């Protein structure tokens, strides 16, 4: 029992990300409103970003910007130790993922507006009913 509690506490970031991801995925599949699905999609994407950022965290380390490192000379700085700084690679990847997220959002909203202009509703069942009537 104590083990279980210990794992839950030790990895709580992962549990939060899984919860958010499940919520987003559920909304994308089960919601009826097209914009609600887009909200779900964004939550789904940010959950994955949270996961990546969690990979990068390092105990006892600081943000990945080198201190006392201005200037260009090779002797202007002391030796840098990897343990002092947080892993920068996941951050880089996630900058890209955020950009991809906002790009997808823009396209999805554009599509939703086009659909609204055609059918005058954002509810999927109402749209499908209209299509069936044609």
């Amino acid at each position, binding site marked *: 029992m104590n083990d279980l509690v210990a794992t839950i506490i030790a990895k*709580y*970031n992962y549990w*939060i990300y899984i*919860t*958010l991801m499940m*919520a*987003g995925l559920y*909304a994308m599949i089960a*919601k*009826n*409103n097209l*914009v*609600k699905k887009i*909200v*779900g999609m*964004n*939550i789904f994407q*940010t959950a994955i*970003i*949270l996961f990546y*950022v*969690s990979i*990068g*965290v390092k105990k006892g*380390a*600081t*943000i*990945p*910007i080198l201190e006392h490192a201005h200037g260009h000379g090779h002797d202007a700085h002391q030796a840098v130790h990897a343990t002092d700084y*947080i892993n920068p690679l*996941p*951050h880089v990847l*996630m*900058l890209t993922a*955020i*950009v991809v*997220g*906002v790009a997808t*959002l*823009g396209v999805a*909203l554009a599509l*939703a*507006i086009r659909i*609204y202009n055609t059918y005058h*509703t*954002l*509810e999927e069942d109402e749209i499908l009913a209209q299509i069936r009537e044609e």
Partner: protein
Amino acid sequence: MIWQIDLAILTLVVITAGGALMVKDLLGAAILFGAYSFMMCALWSIMGAVDVAFTEASVGAGVSAVFFVAAVFRTTRRTKD
């Protein structure tokens, strides 16, 4: 890292995410989504991912929310779920 703040923000992240998905008004969902993004941004800056947090603050809480509001303004606030 102060665990009380961490926990409070994690709770708020989950609450705002749930709220954005559950509220029966698209404009409200858009605003709650902005709040969710901002909480995410706070969480990431706590984790030391300053660049990611900066981007999320400007993109997620800023521009994305504006896009959502603009799209809702051009369509409708009504939603059944």
